[in-house]
């Protein structure tokens, strides 16, 4: 579905932001991209959606090339992007207009619009806020509106670029649970984060470090074989516990249920 083929990116010559990154993502996968502040993981996200274009190599989404302007428009339609700061992605003045914005851009017929707006807002439980203005919403609510605005465009993939990092625990939980619901319904999800608790439930982890792809594989293998501290990351609580107790792998914790559901006494 998505292919990075020897992708390089820099702003100025001599700089390396992204260096020779290769990977392929299949439809329906839940992939977490992890790395420290400034590792280049957000740049990878922007390259996927064609918000930045590779200096060398190609980024293709379903055979569409991000460097071709006509194909780029189709990519924007099919790939949704939720940004880190809820404050900076609200473009218009009300929740309804925000969801309409994308629909108008992709020329959805007028009769179809209202139905799509309602369905999308219902999916994120924001249907009561149709007329609300951005400064009346909390961070978590703004992120949910952003997700609705994307869902209305009926994308095939959604990228969450540290979309939970500026939210309070409640907002974070809501956004995470929406992510997993969408994935259960078949959506391809790319989740960029440095919160290791959140990546335990991913199907695959990509580690970006100083612009290189250092790891691509199963979260379990990632936490077993990589010394994550080297990359400014921390083992999730469940893995720290497992390692301290020298328990046998495999051992993961369901993020929805927490550790409570995982244990019994013998």
């Amino acid at each position, binding site marked *: 579905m998505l292919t990075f083929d020897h992708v390089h990116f820099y702003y100025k010559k001599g700089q390396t932001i992204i260096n020779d990154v290769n990977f392929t993502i299949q439809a329906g996968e839940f992939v977490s991209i992890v790395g420290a502040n400034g590792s280049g993981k957000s740049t990878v996200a*922007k390259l996927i*959606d064609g*918000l930045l274009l590779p200096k060398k190599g190609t980024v293709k989404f379903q055979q569409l090339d991000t460097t071709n302007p006509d194909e780029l*428009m189709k990519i*924007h*339609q099919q*790939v*949704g*992007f939720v*940004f880190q*700061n809820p*404050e*900076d*992605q*609200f*473009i*218009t*003045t*009300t929740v309804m*207009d925000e969801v*309409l*914005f*994308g*629909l*108008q*851009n*992709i*020329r*959805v*017929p*007028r009769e179809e*619009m*209202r139905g799509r707006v309602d369905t999308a807002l219902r999916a994120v439980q924001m249907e009561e806020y149709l007329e609300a*203005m*951005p*400064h009346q919403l909390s961070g978590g609510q703004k992120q949910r509106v952003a997700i609705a*605005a*994307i869902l209305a*465009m009926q994308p095939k993939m959604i990228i969450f670029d540290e979309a939970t990092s500026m939210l309070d625990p409640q907002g974070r939980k809501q956004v995470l649970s929406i992510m997993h619901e969408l994935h259960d319904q078949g959506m391809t999800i790319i989740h960029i984060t440095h919160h290791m608790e959140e990546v335990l439930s991913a199907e695959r982890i990509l580690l970006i470090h100083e612009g290189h792809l250092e790891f691509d594989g199963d979260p379990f293998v990632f936490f077993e074989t990589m010394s994550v501290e080297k990359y400014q990351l921390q083992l999730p609580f469940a893995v720290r516990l497992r390692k301290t107790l020298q328990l046998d792998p495999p051992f993961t914790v369901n993020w929805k249920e927490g550790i409570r559901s995982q244990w019994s006494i013998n």
Partner: protein
Amino acid sequence: MSDTILIGQYMETNSVFHRLDPRTKILSLFIIMLSFLMLKTATSFTIVSLFVFGILMLSKIPFPVFMKGLKPILFILTFTFVYNVLLTKGNVIWSWSFIDVTAEGLQNGVRFVWRIILLVLLASILTLTTKPLELASGLEKLLAPLSKFHVPVEQFSLMIVIAIRFIPTILQELDRIILAQKARGHDIVHLPLVKRMLAYIPILIPLLFTTIQRAEQLTYAIDARAYGKGKGRTAYKLLQFQQIDYVVGMIAVLFVITVIIIRLGGL
């Protein structure tokens, strides 16, 4: 700070004006305001003032709201008045050292100031009774013919929408910065004027930086949602003239004709 700025301060009072098409309001107010340039005599000023007063009443918006809107232009009004009084030549009625006050000067001063007040009151009717987004789409429709000459009308309209959306955000940010600076012992309220001007630098620099960052993120957000340089977007809200629009339009035209007749008749 946030209370004195009228832009985007829409007020729901369910008046006739709220039901009008934004295009009717923009065009009518535009020609009425133009006609104000022809006001000269006390009679014409009285008639027009009564008319404007009637409009204010019809809008059902409480009078203090309008007064608040005039506050920020108090300085301009004072300046205009003094400028006219002192620099118009004519019959001197009072003088002190090099300052001469003339009867014509007083007359001119009152005329200019009164005209500005009328203009501002009418303009605030537009912003108080029209939702910002309706205003933008009204403007977009009115300017649409210009797009044939490659004027980016649709982008212009998006620009207005974004400006309106970000005013409360930026004011909030300003409040936070002032607070953060105050916590650093940087209190601007208790400083003399010149020093206070300089003291704004620590507040404006962070505001500038965060706003630039914000703008950069916003361009990504707009691109990501497939905004294709504004070409051929579909519309959800359709603007349509109703009967009341024709009536109001007619009244506006009649008003302008009256003003012209008054002027020509020398009343």
